């Protein structure tokens, strides 16, 4: 066992995390993880759970004598430190951590604690709470590789590990990588050829010219409207966007205008601080625009319970908690959930901090329950109507008509009053006319005026009015216009927004997080362990948003550049992107992370600037091919001695296939669409009626980008789930990347993919030369962009010929295959060839390289 432990040390010494025996002890790197993991649950920030009055997360309290006069930590004196005595104790009643916690310390950990105390037990604040400082960019001797500051940080690390960077990726592979990362779609082979040519030309003039080419292409991708779509996908995960309310009833909601706002905001490269402020508090800006109101839909993305028996107060508390936790995860990289019920056990957040944040979100003019009784497609207030221009002018017209009618009715009322005596006389003038009246009216009219009661008089007026033809026509018109207005209102799209209550709700700490158990009253405030809000900031959502993006904030810039890094490199520099707390991972390249964070703020929170910097770096441009040796030394690529490689996420997998086959409809925005779906799925899982039946879309709805696919929380699109999309019930900042047999079944058998293969085959047959080899080469390039190797082409061709013979022998099977999907193939194409090429195209779409972005 000991032998293995030594080898583990050897192995991980390449990862940069290892404890180097000769190095000085670092509290953050070496000691805090031990204390946090093994001690803080009982001797940490949570006062209520603290045992024996001992607190180890702060030096002052840890080195203070206890009531019994003993010292947990006596700096420099191991012998006097109870902590050391207790961790070595063999008495099960005394040893720490207690055996029942299953948190025993290893010998290595014990000796680290000894060394640390012997060396004076120095503490450090947790790294992520110290504002980032622009680290000096390392200067590496003989550096002909670095293109950006990023590279110099990485190269210094590689050198220290006796590693070298990989060769640059081939241009076609690099462009595919850039394109998939930045717009979520593959480039065309022609674009790859142009890129390759330009790079070759530039190479003659030197590395700077090559950089210029790469940056120009990056900027070209930034200008694509698809850039915003790609960026929005990850933001939608973070914001828990969906097209239904969630929980059991899970009816539709309308919030896609917010989704489109996100796409547009990325497309105009809105600075991230503004992006933050408008989403968290657009409604509190002076004279907010419609777009700024739509942006506040961000914090209406949480689920909404419409179940019959819910208690509104309980779910109001849920929604506020969701907003607190989502905000903390995205901007602070902190998991605050623990502090909902008690002080955090690891991080320096108290329950008071939690409800201080909660108070910012507690004033929304909302009801706590859904709008179950209302017609389908009615959002729960507050919401903003989004009429089309036609609907607006129609409404104006109807309202104008209504005003005119009202005036006319008033005129009629005046006339009728004037005519009343005359009218009465006419009614009683003859027996005939009297007989036409209702009996009671006739009786009243025959009474002398003085004998009529007020009710009698009203009855006569009513009857006079009811029988007046002009008035009747006007009243009918009025009713019909009002009906039209109601219909118009119901047809008008809306979007959920934030809106403050005129009188704020009082916020109290909820004891153990229970909605009905109110403790001390708190007011809106930011956590005490973070820099305080500037005094001129209002204590509302707007102040909170401005505080989050204040330049001195230690977390926001780091957390966001880390997410951008994750987008391009597959993992963040802090791999636990949602947790920058003491139980999260430490950054792989802390100086680089800080440098990027400072640069982000310096650039004016310019997202494209940061992406350009990262994507034009030599680190990013490396080949992702890995040698056996490197794979063993650094299996997770923490040192970045090769380019990043990962499986495409669900949306871009499908979008890529639609693009390669030519099926993709490139329309931006609008209501969600319903592409192919396994029949009967909703009927099985949901109640299976009303909004719970899936009605497949038609025409272009089948081929829109996947970001527009209708997202039902209880039954998200199954192909998306198979490829690790979240349920969108809570904020998600990174997805899993599994590799399962169910994914293979999807890519092989889903009509989406079979149809894409068929259309791709059509392109192969009709766009390339007459021979199978050039057709297969064309298909290969449409999917993988690069040129196939001769051996690859030979394999593909052998497969094609084999299947072609089969289909020639079984033409009925070819016919069947060609019927999959709603589009029809070009009729002039020969059936057996098209069917065989469909199988070849399917082969291409199922390659590992295809589902991976290399």
């Amino acid at each position, binding site marked *: 066992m000991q*032998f*293995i432990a030594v*080898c*583990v040390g050897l192995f*991980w010494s390449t990862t940069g995390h290892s404890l180097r025996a000769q190095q000085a002890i670092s509290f953050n790197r070496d000691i805090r*993880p031990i204390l946090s993991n093994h001690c803080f649950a009982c001797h940490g920030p949570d006062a209520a759970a603290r045992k024996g009055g001992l607190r180890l997360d702060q030096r002052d309290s840890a080195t203070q004598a206890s009531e019994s006069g003993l010292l947990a930590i006596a700096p420099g004196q191991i012998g006097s430190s109870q902590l050391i005595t207790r961790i070595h104790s063999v008495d099960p009643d005394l040893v720490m951590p207690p055996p029942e916690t299953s948190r025993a310390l290893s010998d290595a950990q014990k000796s680290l604690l000894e060394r640390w105390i012997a060396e004076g037990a120095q503490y450090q604040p947790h790294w992520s709470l110290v504002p980032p400082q622009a680290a000096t960019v390392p200067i590496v001797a003989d550096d002909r590789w670095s293109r950006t500051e990023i590279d110099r940080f990485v190269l210094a690390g590689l050198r220290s590990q006796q590693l070298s960077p990989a060769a640059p990726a081939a241009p076609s592979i690099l462009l595919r990588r850039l394109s998939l990362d930045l717009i979520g779609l593959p480039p065309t082979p022609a674009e790859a050829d142009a890129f390759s040519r330009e790079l070759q030309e530039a190479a003659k003039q030197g590395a700077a010219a090559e950089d210029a080419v790469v940056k120009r292409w990056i900027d070209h991708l930034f200008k694509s409207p698809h850039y915003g779509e790609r960026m929005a996908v990850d933001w939608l995960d973070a914001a828990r966007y969906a097209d239904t309310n969630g*929980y*059991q009833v*899970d009816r539709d909601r309308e919030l896609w205008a917010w989704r489109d706002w996100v796409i547009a905001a990325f497309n105009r490269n809105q600075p991230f601080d503004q992006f933050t402020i408008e989403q968290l508090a657009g409604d509190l800006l002076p004279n907010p625009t419609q777009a700024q109101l739509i942006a506040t839909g961000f914090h209406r993305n949480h689920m909404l319970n419409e179940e019959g*028996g819910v208690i*509104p107060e309980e779910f109001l508390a849920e929604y506020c908690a969701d907003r607190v936790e989502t905000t903390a995860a995205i901007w602070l990289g902190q*998991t605050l*959930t623990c502090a909902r019920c008690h002080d955090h056990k*690891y991080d320096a957040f108290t329950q008071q901090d939690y409800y201080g944040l909660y108070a910012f979100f507690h004033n929304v003019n909302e009801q706590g329950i859904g709008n179950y009784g209302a017609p389908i497609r009615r959002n729960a207030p507050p919401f903003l109507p989004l009429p089309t221009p036609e609907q607006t002018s129609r409404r104006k017209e109807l309202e104008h008509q209504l005003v005119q009618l009202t005036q006319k009715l008033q005129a009629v009322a005046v006339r009728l009053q004037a005519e009343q005596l005359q009218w009465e006389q006419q009614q009683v003038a003859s027996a005939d006319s009297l007989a036409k009246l209702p009996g009671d009216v006739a009786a009243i009219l025959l009474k002398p005026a003085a004998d009529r009661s007020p009710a009698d008089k009203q009855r006569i007026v009513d009857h006079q009015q009811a029988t007046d033809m002009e008035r009747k026509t006007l009243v009918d018109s009025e009713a019909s216009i009002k009906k039209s207005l109601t219909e118009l209102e119901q047809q008008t799209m809306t979007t959920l927004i934030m809106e403050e209550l005129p009188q704020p709700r009082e916020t109290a700490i909820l004891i153990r997080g229970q909605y009905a158990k109110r403790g001390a009253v708190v007011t809106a405030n930011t956590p005490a362990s973070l820099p305080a809000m500037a005094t001129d900031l209002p204590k509302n959502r707007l102040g909170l948003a401005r505080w989050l993006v204040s330049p001195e904030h230690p977390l926001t810039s780091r957390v966001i550049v880390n997410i951008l890094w994750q987008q391009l490199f597959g*993992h963040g520099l802090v791999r636990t992107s949602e947790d920058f707390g003491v*139980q999260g*991972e*430490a950054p792989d390249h802390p100086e680089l992370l800080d440098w990027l964070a400072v640069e982000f703020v310096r650039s004016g929170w310019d997202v494209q600037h940061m992406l350009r910097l990262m994507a034009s770096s030599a680190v990013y441009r490396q080949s*992702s*091919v890995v*040698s056996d040796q*490197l*794979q*063993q030394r650094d*299996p997770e690529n923490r040192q970045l001695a090769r380019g990043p490689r990962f*499986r495409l996420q669900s949306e871009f997998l499908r979008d890529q296939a639609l693009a390669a086959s030519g099926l993709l409809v490139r329309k931006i925005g609008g209501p969600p669409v319903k592409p192919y779906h396994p029949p*009967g*799925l909703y009927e*099985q*899982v949901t*109640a*299976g009626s009303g909004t719970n039946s899936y009605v497949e879309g038609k025409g272009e709805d089948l081929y829109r980008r996947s970001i527009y696919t209708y997202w039902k929380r*209880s039954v998200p699109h199954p*192909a998306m789930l*198979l490829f690790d999309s979240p349920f969108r*019930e*809570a904020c998600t900042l990174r997805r899993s990347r599994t*590799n399962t*047999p*169910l994914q*293979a*079944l*999807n890519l*092989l*058998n889903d009509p989406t993919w079979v149809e894409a293969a068929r259309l791709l085959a059509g392109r192969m047959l009709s766009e390339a030369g007459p021979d199978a080899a050039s057709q297969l080469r064309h298909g290969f390039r449409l999917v993988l962009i690069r040129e196939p190797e001769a*051996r*690859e082409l030979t*394999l593909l061709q052998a497969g094609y010929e084999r*299947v072609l013979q*089969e289909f020639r022998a079984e033409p009925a*099977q070819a016919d069947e*295959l060609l*019927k999959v999907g709603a589009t029809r193939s070009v009729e002039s194409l020969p059936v057996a060839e098209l*069917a065989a090429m469909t*199988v070849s195209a399917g082969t291409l779409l*199922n*390659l*590992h*390289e295809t589902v*991976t972005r290399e």
Partner: protein
Amino acid sequence: MAERGCYDRTMALQTAVARRQFLGRQMTGPGVLALAGLLTDTASAGARENSAVNVASATGLPGLPHLIARAKRVIWLTQAGAPSQLDLFDYKPQLRERFNTDLPNSVRGEQRLTGMTAGQQRFPVCPSVFRFGQHGAGGMWLSELLPHTAKIADQICLIRTLHTEAINHDPAMTLLQTGHQLAGRPSLGAWLSYGLGSENANLPAFVVMISRPSGPTNAQPLHERMWGSGFLSPRYQGVRFSPGKDPVLYLSDPPGIIRQRRRGMLDDVAALNRLHGEADADPEIAARLEQYEMAFRMQRSVPELTDLSSESAAVFQAYGPESQKPGSFAANCILARRLVERGVRFVQLYHRGWDQHGSLPSGIRSQCYDTDQPSAALVRDLQQRGLLDETLVIWGGEFGRTVYSQGTLTATDYGRDHHPRCYSIWLAGGGIRGGTVWGETDDFSWNVVRDPVHVHDLNATVLQLLGIQHTALTYRFQGRDYRLTDVHGTMVQGVLA
């Protein structure tokens, strides 16, 4: 050290191992030993994840089971919507005398009511219209609605004091399945498939089936996340089997692709992937090859499994008249038996339609018609095949129903609202003491009088029966070690054989 970021690291390691197994390369160098060290490091959640999937799929996590397992597999017959304990299991003869009297405030206490009855003027006590009788050697009281369950009274342990906090379906079902009312945590099946792995390389470890009630009842909507894996890798989530052409999503080849053609295409894909992987040590390449092969095998093993034509007439007779209808609870019970026969770890059947806020007597009759005979037949069938000893069968829902009537109470008709403070479920099979009744409720089946069992206690007990210490099966997520029973859960010793 090994705890930090172990997820990603071990994902890479796991695929590295798979690749080496697949490509048959020799493993040399310090990495091998490091790997061996990691895989035996039980402190590392990620390492455990690693070994559960590709390295040791037959045995699950290292160190598991912690204890001697009394059961190897579970069939959870989930009755969604909340069956009325008062009309099925919790016999309260005294209530007849209190018909239509007000439920005493002293009994009702502080219990919050749902928005559906909180505004009711009265809470009239509503005895069951159904007769109860004593069954089995121990004289277990059961309703006349359960004649078949009555015949297995000696096999089942009836818990009458299960309780929960949630009063609405979604939070309650989520709590029952995942140990927490809010979405986002792994379900019991996912925990088991993570912890114990699979015993069949061609089938998922966790299978879910949802049946349709035969009567015109209001089927409770469910939610894919109820059998989800929460923060565990999605590979542990339940795989839903459905009746019809594709028992598993996208299982069938498209028209025109016969088996031999699919085989040829997969061979081409594999050959091209191998070519691509020649100069590339990326372990994901081999891992993907293996997943495609498993997909191909599943295309054979799943239809074979779901095809009931080889079952004898006697089996269909035992499971009742609905059992020949695909998608019925009865047919799914037969499938559940076939799944555990093949070593599937966790089978979860959902039967919906128990939410009888009104017209309870007719609604519950129809539900019992669907479930009583097949549930009992399943227990007997397992017993006859020698599988009951190692299979745990659980029958029940997410909460109980109120003793007072929701809406109008007549001599023959009533409804009942949601009731979380006590309800009944039964267990049978591996490790369970058959013929026993656990716990006692008050005269109104409103409060627990003796031996309460919280949902967490039930889950702790289920884990223990499978040889798992519920406090020791944990997974680190967002810096915290999570477990199915959260920070709660006590074993219910009294139900164990």
